[in-house]
């Protein structure tokens, strides 16, 4: 970390001065790790039409947190990760068996999960306020150890992408074709869904449940407007995420608003810019 602090000290910002504002420097590093993570996931989320589903996963992650807290775990995140992966597995199976991609079914899942979460966390007249951080998120609270965890997840995701992206993409684009080429479609769907589940759950504390889905959708949706092939698609999604991530963090520092919301707003602006760019092409 001291190397990072030393590196940041070259930046021409008041918070970058050596020995001050460590939380801001941590947050910047976390953004540099989180945004590529979401950038990579977002193109697949958009193409698999999972935007709505990832939202539901976020909600069930919150329920997992509530269950973990109820069981008296000091680290409810792990309970939430397991819970979200189980939901991901269930959903993949249900989707396969009934061939429903329907928004209604997802909505049922999502509402049930979030209701259960609120029910459990307010059981016996408890106050809900301790969960507020989960809703809004606070990237400034990220600790070096947690950044290391995020970095490990990023490395794992890149490994998963390098080994499985082709098959996951073909499964999403054309199931019958993927099937006929011997791809285990259900397994690939599950791997992808589980990856979303883990990333959403682990980052929820810092990004915030209310805006996390924007990060999963907007970088891909914006890149899609201007990319012509898959490598451009991914490059633009990741770069767009990075730039808006850094910009949003700065914005939040100077105007004193939530970082998650600022990043999302910039991404939304970026999306409309790409939409205009596409229109002029």
């Amino acid at each position, binding site marked *: 970390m001291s190397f990072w602090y030393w590196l940041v000290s070259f930046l021409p910002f008041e918070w970058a001065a050596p020995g001050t504002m460590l939380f801001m420097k941590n947050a910047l590093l976390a953004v540099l790790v989180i945004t590529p993570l979401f950038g990579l996931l977002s193109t697949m989320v958009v193409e698999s039409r999972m935007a709505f589903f990832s939202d539901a996963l976020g909600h069930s992650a919150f329920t997992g947190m509530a269950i973990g807290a109820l069981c008296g775990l000091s680290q409810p995140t792990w309970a939430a990760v397991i819970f979200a992966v189980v939901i991901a597995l269930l959903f993949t199976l249900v989707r396969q068996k009934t061939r429903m991609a329907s928004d209604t079914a997802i909505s049922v899942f999502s509402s049930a999960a979030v209701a259960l979460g609120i029910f459990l966390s307010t059981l016996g007249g408890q106050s809900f306020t301790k969960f507020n951080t989960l809703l809004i998120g606070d990237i400034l609270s990220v600790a070096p150890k947690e950044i290391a965890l995020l970095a490990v997840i990023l490395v794992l995701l890149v490994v998963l992408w390098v080994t499985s992206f082709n098959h996951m993409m073909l499964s999403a684009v054309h199931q019958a*074709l993927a099937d006929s080429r011997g791809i285990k479609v259900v397994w690939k769907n599950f791997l992808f869904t589980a990856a979303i589940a883990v990333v959403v759950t682990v980052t929820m504390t810092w990004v915030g449940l209310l805006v996390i889905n924007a990060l999963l959708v907007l970088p891909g949706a914006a890149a899609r407007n201007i990319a012509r092939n*898959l490598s451009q698609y991914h490059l633009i999604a990741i770069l767009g995420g990075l730039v808006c991530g850094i910009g949003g963090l700065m914005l939040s520092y100077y105007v004193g608003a939530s970082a998650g919301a600022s990043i999302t707003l910039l991404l939304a602006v970026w999306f409309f810019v790409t939409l205009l760019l596409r229109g002029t092409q």
Partner: protein
Amino acid sequence: MRFAAKRDHSRIPLPVRPGTCTLQVRDLGVTMEEDVILHDVTFQLNCREITALIGPNGAGKSSLFRSILGQMPYDGSIKFLLAGGYPSRPKIGYVPQSPSFDRGYPISVLDFFAAAISRWPVFLPVPKDLRQRVEECLTRVHGQGLLDKRIGALSGGELQRVLLALALEPIPQILILDEPLSGVDVGGEHLLLEMLDEIRQKYDLSILFSTHDFSTLRHYADKVILLQQTILRQGAPKEVLGSREFQSVFHLNLEEEGGKAP
């Protein structure tokens, strides 16, 4: 999910023409939630032959394909015999029914193809040698110029050719095409059928395709199978198209469709 073809040694195999490989389907039946989709389907595909599968919608054509592809559980037996009568597991190339690709998806023909035939993760720029390999595959269907086009921007005929090229890599022993002519204009239709003719000569494979277009069958198909839950008639195109079964199946259907029209 994959289902292995059930082995059935108790029956005497159908006669095999010497020197050719065959796919033998015997007493095939498919039942789905107590609905009989197919029953008592028995036929044979020979190498270098083009067989057309015809029948009204819901006749079970796709289920028959999926059974041969091993994507669906079935009764009866499906066996593949190499020249000389040795049983083997066939390599099957499959061209799915006019898949609808999202027009906005920024995926080029090269990306799509490379993802299917190689391990190179295609979210990274595709290296030169892989690009060359894909180009060679596309040349088989005279589609080398399509390499950098977006999949969503292809015409119906172009898309079918790309999917055909994909089904030919690696070269299969049986090529199955689900309604390859739907969504393809007349010019593209002839191009595609000429290509199938060329391919079966060149690569010594048997071709099975389903179609609703009967006008081209006499020219391009060696054999026609008329299917409606079971095989009503099979044989040379002239024989099947002139049969009473063909008349009754499609005449009946015309009446039904006429009845629905306002």
